[in-house]
């Protein structure tokens, strides 16, 4: 009787999901080589302060990991449609263990996506000290919290038909505003981006130039969104399962 076995099968199902493999893993990796290879000698890439291979390693990792997290919603909506969520509610699996398994699945997929891009980055000459690698990874992990909550919330709120476009649209828009495709260093988009956790996800790559790439604003935005979206996910879950 353990939720570890349950989580293991959740992961197995997820790894077998082709769409996530393509958009969460394959797509960022291919784009990375397409974008970063021609620019691999740029030291200060488009005013970002870091080299192009480092910038794109983190920005595309932010895309892949965001996708890994938010696509939790697609699987949850599918499980609801199949009546599986109700089936689980008549097992001893607690809501806490259920949600923990979802979050852990999201993080595991994100870690795989991140690992692949780190390897690709290293292959293109990204070199960080051990502590910089760790710091970047930890910042990304923290900045993914609001996206885990967003995915869970959308999954319990939307139908299986509407959740796909909602996820795709949200992630693409966030990626655009937050500098995934190109650094956004000034103007309205920059101001808007600074208010979003995805911007700070991309900024985690600045560890090598200033030891604290987030500052107070970054932490406030990331943690603020975490609080808001965890509340949203909690509300959507309660509404869906009728525990209100």
């Amino acid at each position, binding site marked *: 009787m353990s939720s570890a076995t349950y989580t293991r099968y959740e992961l197995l199902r997820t790894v077998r999901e082709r769409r996530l493999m393509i958009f969460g893993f394959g797509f960022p990796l291919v784009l990375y080589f397409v974008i970063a290879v021609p620019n691999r000698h740029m030291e200060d890439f488009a005013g970002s302060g870091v080299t192009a291979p480092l910038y794109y390693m983190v920005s595309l990792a932010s895309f892949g990991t965001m996708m890994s997290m938010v696509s939790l919603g697609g699987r949850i909506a599918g499980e609801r449609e199949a009546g599986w969520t*109700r089936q689980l509610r008549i097992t001893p699996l607690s809501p806490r263990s259920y949600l923990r398994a979802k979050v852990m699945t999201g993080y595991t997929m994100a870690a795989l996506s991140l690992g692949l891009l780190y390897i690709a980055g290293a292959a293109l000459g990204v070199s960080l000290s051990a502590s910089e690698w760790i710091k970047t990874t930890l910042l990304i992990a923290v900045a993914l919290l609001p996206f885990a909550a967003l995915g869970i919330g959308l999954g319990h709120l939307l139908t299986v038909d509407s959740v796909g476009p909602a996820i795709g649209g949200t992630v693409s828009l966030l990626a655009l505003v937050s500098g995934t495709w190109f650094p956004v260093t000034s103007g309205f988009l920059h101001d808007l981006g600074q208010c979003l956790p995805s911007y700070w996800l991309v900024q985690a790559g600045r560890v090598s130039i200033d030891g604290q790439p987030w500052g107070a604003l970054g932490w406030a935005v990331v943690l603020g969104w975490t609080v808001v979206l965890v509340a949203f996910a909690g509300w959507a879950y309660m509404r869906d399962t*009728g525990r209100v």
Partner: protein
Amino acid sequence: MPGELEAIRLEGLVKSWKGPSGPVRAVRGLDVTIARGETVALLGPNGAGKSTTIDMILGLARPDAGHVSVFGRAPSDAVKAGLVGGMLQTGALIRGLLVRELVSMVASLYPDPLDIGEVLELAGLTDAAGQRTEKLSGGQTQRARFAVAVVSNPELLILDEPTVAMDVEGRRAFWVAMRAFAARGKTVMFATHYLEEADANADRAVLLAHGRIVADGPTTEIKGRVGTRTIRATLPDVAADELAALAGVNSAERHGDAVILVCSDSDQVIRELLPRYSAARDIEITGAGLEDAFVRLTGEADDDEIPATGTEVQSAR
């Protein structure tokens, strides 16, 4: 739970749902006790309140009034203790797992599950164990859902219309599996709208119509009560009471010039009816559909509130 003789006790159970055109009173006061080891059919037409009742027994819905206990505890506690297994009415399987993996995944949530191979054999899935859940046929899917419901080795198994969408052979195999499980001394409750299924597979049937119990007893007895025929005839100027007194007539109703006689023995009734009331014409004899029988039984049980036609109950779920 040890020593507890009652598997399920429902007392004064009431539940309404929010429907598109106002509240739907799905369950309107149920009192029933199911003893350990019984196999009970919850029999009723669509919208009778079967699924709503089951949802409350499983802790998926909270009663508006009344009380549910399962092995002497709250439903959610019985579920947490792994005493209850359920196969819900609507449901598919999650994708991306082999049948064996799916059953193992569910087994891992329970303290003392059955052996996976044993469950797959019981459910008739041994040959499909290595197949992906999304590749199963309709009947296999239902059997996999059955395996998910019994893998915990529950004391109480609840099945909500388990054979819907199965072919004849699939049904037969399914009930064999269910009876094999019940034979282990388990309590089983299943919802169905087929009288034959209840008759063949349960010791006792609880008939629901419009959210109330209209009959409760051994299946043989229930079958006698609802296995009736209806005679419909145009016959003005004869009091319904007079017709009701004919041998073989359970009840008589008048609708304008037409009379409707619910009969326990329609052959005998027609023999008496024609010589005595030669004006009777447009005679139709129909085997009462279960739904008609239920509506009639509800009428008997509840004179002050004759149920309307089935329109309001269609949206109960």
